[in-house]
């Protein structure tokens, strides 16, 4: 390990020390301050920005004005470009692969196993790849999951993030919630929307892993509609 890597490791380890839970009273106070407080939108936002404008330094105001003027000039050049013989060619229309065929509107259940590999991990984030094998090629493939730790307590950790499952015909994209227990047991809920050949279809699944070494079992359904909302985290097992 080089000297630089050693310092990076020491720093990463040292940063772990410290709280990762916000004091309840601070959060409550912030919620109290925002209750009944109108958000800055429309004319109110404009007025608030103008108010702040007069509080900032003259140098900053002059720089901002110069940037706006430069932006206006640049925009006028871009707008006039097509008339001067410039402009980009229109992009080609994408061609899609075969659409998944399903009879009627009923959900199609699928089941299988998932194999997960942690690609990178830090105290508050986990990037992992999951190979899903259900025997249905439309929803099988390699998925990437990018997760952040929302809450971590002695008895459980809750993670939330985005997921994309890609295969030859398209991709399923959406959000994922995970609850992990110190024993290694893990529940994973994903609610995904189809793209490309799967556009207009939804895919939701749950993965359960009983222990850290156990097989990850998948139970899922595909149907032609919007994906369902993820379950309320407080109702998770």
């Amino acid at each position, binding site marked *: 390990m080089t000297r630089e890597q050693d*310092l990076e490791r020491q720093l990463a380890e*040292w940063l772990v*020390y410290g709280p990762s839970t916000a004091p309840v009273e601070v959060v409550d106070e912030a*919620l109290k301050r925002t209750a009944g407080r109108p958000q800055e939108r429309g004319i109110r936002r404009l007025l608030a920005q103008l108010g702040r404008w007069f509080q900032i330094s003259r140098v900053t105001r002059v720089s901002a004005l110069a940037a706006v003027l430069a932006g206006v000039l640049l925009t006028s050049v871009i707008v006039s470009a097509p008339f001067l013989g410039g402009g980009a060619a229109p992009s080609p229309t994408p061609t899609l692969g075969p659409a998944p065929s399903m009879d009627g509107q009923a959900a199609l259940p699928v089941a299988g196993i998932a194999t997960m590999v942690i690609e990178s991990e830090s105290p508050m984030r986990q990037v992992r790849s999951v190979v899903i094998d259900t025997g249905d090629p439309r929803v099988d493939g390699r998925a990437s999951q990018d997760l952040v*730790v929302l809450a971590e307590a002695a008895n459980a950790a809750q993670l939330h993030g985005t997921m994309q499952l890609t295969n030859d015909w398209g991709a399923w994209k959406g959000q994922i919630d995970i609850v992990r227990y110190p024993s290694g047991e893990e529940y994973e809920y994903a609610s995904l929307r189809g793209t490309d050949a799967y556009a207009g279809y939804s895919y939701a699944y749950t993965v359960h892993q009983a222990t850290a070494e156990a097989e990850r079992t998948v139970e899922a359904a595909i149907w032609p509609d919007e994906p369902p909302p993820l379950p309320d985290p407080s109702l998770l097992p």
Partner: protein
Amino acid sequence: MQLREMVERAGRGDHDAFEAVVRASAGRLYAIAYRILRDADLANDALQEALVKVWDDLPTLRDPDRFDAWAARITCRCCYRLAKRERRFALQVPADPRPDTTAFVAEVADQDEMERGFRRLSPQHRAVLVLHYYLGLTLGEVAETLDIPPGTVGSRLHYAMRSLRAALESEARTAQTWERSA
């Protein structure tokens, strides 16, 4: 209900949804604030200020999926402001490392050196280190979160690590001098 949906509803003025969003994300934001400011009181103030700002500005958030990065950016900016009134660091470890040479004391002493070295950095440099080494964001994601060019992130990271190393080496030299004179 998904976080995305709660963010959307909060952006339309739904305070219950905002409370759910806050309860889900406050821990992460507080962890960022604490690690940049290295002070619980300042981190409390930064978090509270950031949450109020998040509520105010939520209608301007175009992509609810980017909420995490957007809220982290607001928190970092609150930290920059509050860092200006950062107090002097109070030692939290025994000042005299001589009586004991056990691993525990050595570890605490190392942590203390890191703490002092880290505190010599500017809040902007600390933010880059916290986002990269603690949250595990890539340099591109740090750039997006802080709304600065990727080159600036690389440069801040380089200078932050160089300054940190220099600070640690300086601490080590001071300790050696102190040991020799004792």
